[in-house]
């Protein structure tokens, strides 16, 4: 086994263990947990079976196999970030609605309080 292979093996195992840890602490929602586990597993498989990566690189005419890994990695990162900004937008929208409702409810409550007291 080459050194770089050992390194990537360790990294992917660490990722999987860390994600499992986060799931156990309920710090990650299931949908994202699945996504990260999937990433981790793909990395793990590719670092054990380097021949698969080389085969794939050959299939798309990439001479230096690891650069295919970079390409895929960057594309996945972009997609994930795009997805996250969509999620953040949706959350912002929800927070606005909730803030407005709290304001309106508080206003009603205060009026009720005044009726009772005075």
């Amino acid at each position, binding site marked *: 086994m080459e050194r770089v292979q050992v390194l990537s093996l360790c990294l992917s195992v660490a990722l999987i263990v860390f994600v499992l840890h986060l799931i156990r602490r309920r710090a990650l929602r299931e949908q994202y947990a699945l996504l990260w586990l999937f990433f981790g597993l793909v990395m793990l498989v590719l670092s054990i079976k380097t021949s698969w990566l080389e085969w794939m690189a050959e299939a798309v005419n990439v001479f230096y196999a690891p650069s295919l890994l970079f390409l895929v990695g960057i594309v996945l990162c972009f997609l994930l970030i795009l997805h996250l900004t969509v999620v953040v937008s949706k959350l912002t929208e929800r927070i*606005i609605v909730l*803030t*407005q409702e*709290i304001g*309106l409810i*508080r*206003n009603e409550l205060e009026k009720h309080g005044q009726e009772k007291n005075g």
Partner: protein
Amino acid sequence: MSYDTLKVCIIIPAYNEEKSIAQVISRIFRLHPEFTVVVIDDGSSDGTAAAAKAAGADVITLPQNLGIGGAVQTGYLYCARKGFDVAVQVDADGQHKPEELDKIINPIREGQADMVLGSRWVENTGYRSSRSRRAGMLILASLVSFFTRRHVTDPTSGFRAVGRKGIQLFAEDYSTDYPEVDSLVSLNSHGLRIIEVAVEMDQRQAGSSSISSVKSIYYMIKVTLSIMIRSVR
């Protein structure tokens, strides 16, 4: 429903305006004691809410700052749920004169328009501002005129009145950040009639403006994008 039984609500968005808000409210009540005035205190850190309450307004305090759009929409939600016929937006800084309220409400009372915009530029009025601000307003005015195919001179004016249809629409959908311009395009695309009337405006009476120069460039780009998205949707 007869002419003067229309229920009118004045919506005042306010962010740290304790110095001017009370005067704005009492001037409105002096002329129109039958109106409801609702102040949206948008997470102010000063005495805005207390000052508004003391002046006799209904105050909605938001637990955090939503920005002008989210705050104003809260006002429209309030009007929609309480069944108001007319909602009028007035700034808390004293720029909008209560004496001009009838001018922007009457076309709605008479059924001539669904929204009335109080414009600084239809005729020459007392309002003055910096050259770059005026340039920005001019660009936005041409954009809105182009997209709505109507002649609009002052789309950034926050002095405006809408009838029931407009209240309903704004309660459901109002852009959060820089809503003045955007909402015109939205109303227009729903087939509501918008007209402009000339009004006098003052300079702000106290406190500080929320608009800085860096912000206004960002504002222009964002509003333009938002208008374009609205008109293709």
